[in-house]
């Protein structure tokens, strides 16, 4: 029997949920994480394009769970299922990453240090919403995720209960129960490309949000409206010094 917390030899498993990601950032993201993770478990939410094929083309992808019917309107179920599927491999650490997120370079160097310890069970990062390209991120009252810490990396603890709030959209990416454990807050940055497309793409996303959450039950109406802001406050993204 192995200890629940190891100081060395920890494997890192990335978990990702995807849906119709063919012409977006999937290949780039999978290529990037393949550099520093040991394996990848993906859940495909009933894609109708080549998403699954792309996923399977990466050798570190251990399994792609293909859902026949989309869980898009019940995101918490999708997150929960992905967690269960990944845990059946009894991983050491799980990195919850979306198909449009890329860690800055330093994470690749620090990842092993962050997981080969027995003092904390989760690590959080700062996620930046790159806006209208990859040179700037947005920062205003509605777009300030980077000012908080987002838990993305957790240690798998056998028997530890996982719990997701039943949020149909904007569900927590990892189980809330990890809040009871000791964690580590880092300033390592994550680039979120979800808003880095052109205006037409943002309009399409805006309409999708309005449709899926017309009453602002799962998010803020003001934030949805602000997607269309013609002149948002943008700050230049500076890559870290290597």
């Amino acid at each position, binding site marked *: 029997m192995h200890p629940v*917390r190891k100081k060395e030899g920890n494997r890192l498993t990335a978990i990702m949920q995807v849906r119709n990601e063919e012409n977006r950032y999937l290949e780039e993201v999978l290529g990037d994480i393949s550099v520093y993770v040991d394996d990848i478990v993906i859940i495909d939410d009933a894609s109708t394009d080549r998403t699954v094929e792309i996923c399977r083309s990466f050798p570190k992808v251990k399994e792609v769970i293909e859902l026949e019917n989309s869980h898009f309107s019940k995101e918490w179920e999708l997150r929960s299922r992905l967690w269960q599927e990944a845990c059946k491999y009894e991983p050491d650490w799980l990195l919850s990453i979306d198909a449009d997120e890329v860690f800055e370079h330093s994470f690749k160097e620090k990842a092993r240090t962050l997981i080969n310890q027995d003092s904390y069970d989760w690590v959080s990062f700062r996620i930046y919403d790159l806006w209208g390209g990859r040179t700037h991120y947005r920062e205003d009252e509605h777009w300030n995720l980077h000012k908080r810490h987002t838990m993305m990396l957790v240690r798998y603890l056998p*028997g530890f*209960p996982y719990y997701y*709030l039943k949020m149909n959209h904007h569900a927590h990416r990892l189980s809330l129960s990890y809040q009871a*454990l000791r964690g580590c807050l880092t300033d390592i940055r994550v680039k979120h490309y979800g808003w880095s497309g052109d205006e037409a793409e943002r309009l399409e996303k805006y309409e999708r949000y309005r449709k899926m959450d017309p009453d602002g039950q799962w998010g803020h109406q003001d934030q949805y409206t602000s997607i269309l802001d013609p002149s948002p406050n943008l700050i230049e993204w500076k890559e870290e010094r290597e």
Partner: protein
Amino acid sequence: MPEIAHTMPVLIRNDEDMAMLRECLDSLKGSMDHFVFYNQGGLSNYDLSSLIDAYLKDFTVLGKGTNDGIPFARQSCFQYIWVNLPAMQYITEIHPDMLFPKDWPQKLVEFLEDNKEEPCISPGILTKEGQWHPHGKGIFGAQIPSRTDELVDLLVEKQEEKVVEGFVHPVMHRASCLKKAGGYIVEDLPGMQGYEDDYLLLSYYHRLRLPENWKPKALLSIYVFHRTMAQRADFSNMEEESNKNLQGLLKRFGTQGIMDLQHIHSVKKKENIRGSIYFFGTSSDKDVPFIRGVNPYIIHSQISKERSLDQFEQEKASDGNVKNIAVVDHPYWLNSVSKICPQLTIARITEHVWNPTSALYRKGICAVADIILTDSEEIHWQLALSHPFILLCPSLNKKSHLLNEDEWGIYSDSDYYLKEIIESSFEDGDRTETWQGMINKQRQERIRGLQDILEWEPHNEVNLSLLAKYYYITQQYEEAENYFFQAFLRNVLVHKMDGLNRYYPGICLAQLRQGKTKEALNSYGILAQTDDMKQHYHQLLPLYNKEEYEWLQAEISRLLGDIRYARDLIDQTASPEADGSRYLFYRDMLDYKGCEEILRKRGDGVASAKEHWLLQGEKEELFGEPQRALHHYLQASIYEEKAIENILRLEAVDRFMDGGE
């Protein structure tokens, strides 16, 4: 014949009351004494007067037909007599549910004429259950004839020229004494009923400065039939009413009054003394519940301890059959408790004494206690894991209401349990069966209560965790695990940060008890966030891999507090390598003999020497001679300076005994 006034509150609720009153009046028919009635309701004053008029010549009806309570009614009668009939030499308290033999007051008057120092006298009474009070209480000695004339014949037949100690109604007061004592001062007795008799006796005792050994008396050369205390059944909130009067009594006479009452009501006959109960507490201002045939002693300081221990020696010498019972309210009394060699030790552990400084003594008192009472559900949970008999008594810190034997039924839960525990120890048979019955009943009721509450409030973290704990201590481990997890998740959802330490020990223990050793070890690993626990966890992993499951389970149980289970498991562990664990168990359980045996096997060495002196010190400190403990601790401090802390503890206990803490 001297002037006598009889007082009688009358409450007519039904035909039966009416019939009793008629019979009562009929038995008094022809009396030349004056009667003062107080109309408590059921009849108009006119109707009541018309009724009485058929039997008695000289009477007055007071009141307006409202039930103003017994103390108020009686006092109104007294005041009427004091003002309007000042020549009255004797005043009685009689009831409408009584039957009187002819000329019944005469012998009572004679007694008071002959015994000028006595403020009052009761006759003997026969109850409808066939008991002769006050001397034959609890003994069913008579068949009650159905015919009134035969009943009166029986009352006369049983008369004997004897005076016994005890107090019953009816009672005849010397009017001058009653007036001096003040009667029932209604400001002190605002309740409808309860404690007024005790109040009046205490008034006599204190205001008339009666001799220290005075007790009320009953004259058995006259008997009265007393059916029942009819009016008592008329209050649904009897306890509340009673408590109002109790508070007044306490206000007037203080807790000394309660001690005096115990003396006043105590039974003189030597053969009725069944035991001595020693209350080891923190203050002389302590309410002591009355338990028939048991002499109470309050020990709250070094001086009171020595006085009580002298008393103990005397009683031991005079009667070896008297049982000694220790009720210990503070663990620092542990050493003194052992000096009275109690046959029954009851520890009362409140939140007040649940602090780290008293931990060793607390462990000690729990080790010697036959049964523990506590006011805290958290303490109840923790101690239930290490002691077989523990009862929850939320009112443990509250005033005791158990004043005299007439008042059974009006007491707090802690007094109830105390009485039951003590009574069971006087009975033949296995007293622990009685205790287990009480414990099981209490726990099952609590589980049902929590289940009901959770139906309405399913996400209440506190109740979820309480239910988990009750399931655990009633050996429903699967349910316990489930509810511990629910409480944990609830804790997480409200963004509290203490869920792991609060609930994971319970989860882990519940898994162990279900034989889910691997899961339990993982849970223990998750819980192990401190360096000490991590180190311990890494010591346990090889045990699992070597399939030393009992040893492993014992270690986790011990660390997480399920000492009883841990002890069972470690006893099943044959491996000599487990001696290290075994030693820690014995140490935890204050099993000094077991510890010494293991130390002997270890042989000489600095660590063994230090442990030896520490063990000797603790043993003497807790159960032997504290002065010798000092010497042992000094020896231990040669090896480790930290041993000096034990001496500081000794000093703290000394200060406590001197009343300094």
